[in-house]
């Protein structure tokens, strides 16, 4: 208790405290007060923030019981040594109640939707759990669509997200560790893992890194990812973000840790290796033949997304002898009259595609169809007619674009798209030799990269024979037992 009690009469006492809270909240207009008298000489004040509290709850479960208090009850309240347990047991039995000491703590509670109850004559102040945030309902995942398997996705409310994980994994070893992040706006985060499966050192490292964050406000798990990743310069994502609870659960079972943040519909999975980016939960829901084939398709798509334009450049401007005769002649015929060398042609088209893609993401949905028309008709057809690029280049760009979208992790497809440009430059300068040099550079970087101390290329390098059955192929579940 920080304010002097004896000098002030009853309402003054409450006023003082009210002012302190109002000052801390910069006199914001959405702070509401409710003064009620309880019995003969007891006054109470309820403070809450409009919009994030349940007014019905305040009315029915706080105000009403307080007003109904009998005189003998009041006496008992005054006499008792622990008013907190008296109130929670006798007066407001349905409420989540906690006490606080300083006004700062009270404000933190208020910002999280709780309401503050002050009673004069009683030395204790109460935080009542009356929060009610507006949430959207659980919907289908937007960025990770699947044909078979659960269709729910995380939302912006962390409690719903942990409940989704609990729903998909009713395991007694599932641990949810809560904490607060951000130095000014404190936000709740949860570390979710399976006790016994998770590596303790990794878990310690993760919590250590998260505790080191001193940023004022964190909006999304994407920011945390950048603040705690091992290598900031690497083009490869060292964590996976997913909005699917089933994918999260699958990773938890492999001993990985998931990080959830209040207000972010994306869980952050760590530590991950490169091949985790190629895994989709659907691989396991389908029969193993299908799963294996599709996973292989994804690997080859990644190859195409990374190398196809550069191989085209190398072939067309350096190694014409490597193209089959008929194809070489038709490429030569198609390129006749095209103004730019193949490298510029490829760069122009790849950048055009990136523009189209970015525009497609930003365009509001009602005008979204325009992208198809602009992209397909104007860029695709007119550019060829104007002989700015050859029709073969359109095929290359389209194939590359499609291939890069087959990857289940958005972040890895972005890194492949970035590296593609690097390889295209390498191919334009040194041909296939340049592509090989670029590939060697990427490979050396990959084998050295770590995610929370774990090698990024496991289980291929270093080789872990037990886990290999789930890398290139997805062997039958009877053979590869999931943990």
């Amino acid at each position: 208790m920080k304010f002097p009690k004896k000098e002030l009469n009853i309402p003054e006492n409450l006023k003082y405290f009210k002012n302190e809270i109002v000052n801390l909240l910069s006199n914001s207009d959405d702070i509401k007060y409710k003064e009620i008298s309880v019995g003969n000489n007891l006054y109470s004040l309820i403070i809450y923030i409009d919009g994030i509290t349940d007014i019905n709850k305040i009315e029915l479960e706080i105000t009403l019981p307080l007003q109904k208090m009998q005189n003998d009850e009041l006496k008992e309240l005054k006499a008792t040594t622990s008013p907190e347990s008296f109130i929670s047991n006798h007066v407001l039995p349905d409420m989540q109640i906690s006490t606080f000491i300083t006004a700062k703590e009270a404000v933190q509670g208020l910002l999280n939707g709780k309401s503050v109850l002050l009673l004069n004559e009683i030395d204790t102040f109460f935080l009542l759990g009356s929060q009610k945030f507006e949430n959207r309902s659980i919907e289908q995942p937007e960025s990770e669509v699947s044909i078979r398997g659960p269709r729910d996705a995380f939302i912006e409310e962390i409690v719903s997200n942990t409940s989704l994980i609990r729903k998909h994994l009713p395991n007694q070893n599932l641990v949810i560790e809560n904490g607060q992040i951000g130095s000014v706006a404190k936000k709740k985060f949860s570390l979710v893992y399976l006790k016994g499966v998770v590596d303790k050192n990794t878990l310690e490292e993760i919590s250590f890194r998260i505790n080191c964050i001193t940023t004022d406000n964190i909006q999304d798990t994407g920011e945390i990812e950048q603040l705690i990743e091992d290598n900031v310069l690497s083009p490869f994502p060292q964590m996976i973000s997913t909005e699917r609870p089933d994918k999260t659960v699958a990773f938890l079972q492999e001993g990985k840790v998931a990080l959830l943040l209040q207000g972010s519909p994306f869980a952050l999975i760590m530590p991950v290796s490169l091949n985790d980016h190629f895994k989709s939960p659907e691989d396991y829901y389908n029969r193993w033949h299908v799963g294996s084939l599709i996973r292989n398709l994804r690997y080859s798509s990644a190859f195409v997304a990374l190398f196809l334009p550069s191989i085209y450049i190398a072939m067309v401007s350096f190694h014409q002898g490597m193209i089959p005769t008929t194809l070489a002649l038709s490429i030569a015929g198609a390129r006749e009259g095209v103004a730019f060398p193949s490298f510029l042609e490829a760069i122009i088209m790849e950048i055009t595609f990136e523009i189209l893609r970015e525009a497609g993401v930003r365009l509001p949905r009602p005008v979204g169809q325009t992208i198809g028309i602009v992209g397909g008709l104007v860029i695709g057809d007119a550019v060829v007619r104007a002989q700015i690029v050859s029709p073969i280049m359109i095929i290359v760009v389209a194939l590359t674009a499609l291939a890069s979208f087959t990857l289940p992790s958005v972040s890895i497809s972005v890194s492949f798209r970035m590296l593609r440009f690097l390889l295209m430059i390498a191919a334009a300068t040194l041909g296939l030799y340049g592509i090989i040099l670029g590939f060697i550079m990427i490979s050396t970087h990959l084998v050295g990269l770590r995610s929370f101390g774990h090698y990024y290329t496991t289980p291929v390098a270093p080789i872990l024979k037990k886990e290999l059955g789930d890398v290139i192929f997805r062997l039958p579940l009877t053979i590869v037992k999931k943990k």
Partner: protein
Amino acid sequence: MKKAIPLFLILILLSGCWDSKEIEEIGFVMGVGLDPAEGDAFETTFQIAIPSQLVQQSSPANKGKPPFINVSSVGKSNFKNIRQIGARRSRTLNFEHLQVIVIHTELLELGILEHILDVYLRDHEMRRRTLILASEDPVKELLKNQLPLESFKAKSIEKIQENYQRVLSMPKLTSIGDISRYIPKETGYIIPLISKFESDEVIIEGGAIINGSDKLVGLLNPLETEGYNRVIGETNQSVTEVKADDEVFVYESYLMNSYISFEHTNDENTFHITIKTEGAIGESWLNQKKLSENKFLFKLQTLIEQKIEKEINGIVKVMQEEYYTDVFGFGDIIKSENS
């Protein structure tokens, strides 16, 4: 990483697009013809593809025009002849898609095969798959005009040569790779012979016999070529016409292999050629009733055997007594037996 990025940039910025040559700035040579010229010079004919005409062949302006040009140059060396084209045509020649090289028999008679093909054997642009053919007619004429079904005359020749397993009178294909193996060896070999057929067409039939010192010693006629093919066992899908009871039937083989073994007894070298074949009567002009009799079928078998034996004896005799050349690779068998 911090050191690698500037190094990579230096590599790229300093080298630029060194050595790059866009595909549309290249003249793809599809075929090469070598003809004798006056003095010690020879004439090289290049068949250069025109890719744009190939792509837009259906357009009325291009109808009937072949999608290639033939350019000839005369000189004493191949390289000079190739470079001379640079003074007359805009595109530099590229030999990576070269299909065939046709050499006039007069040049082969000089025994200069090793030198006249030197560029095509050793240059980095050349591919070992390129076919070699010999011709008695001027090669310049052979490469003229388009032969329907294929866009380039050179491609047509290459495709025709690939039918050798189905046509008995056409010897097995000889590629640059084969030639590079043959030249250092002392044994002889056969180069398929191409000749003019009617006005515009060509026919690959018979072969040029080259002896151990890479000199042309004679020509195989189509019948002799059949025997040659049987000895070396390259006749799996062949068709043989056999006469029986004044009527003809056709033996179509599915499988025909030859095994050559060597024996050295009493200072005499003997080669045994064993032919194993399996097949069916592909076409019959015989009496149907007779065909159902086992006895008659055995008779037919003997007739086929006799025909094959006769052909083989014919070609071996010609080689032994007329040309003194080992084109069957008997020498190799002795070498492998002795080692």
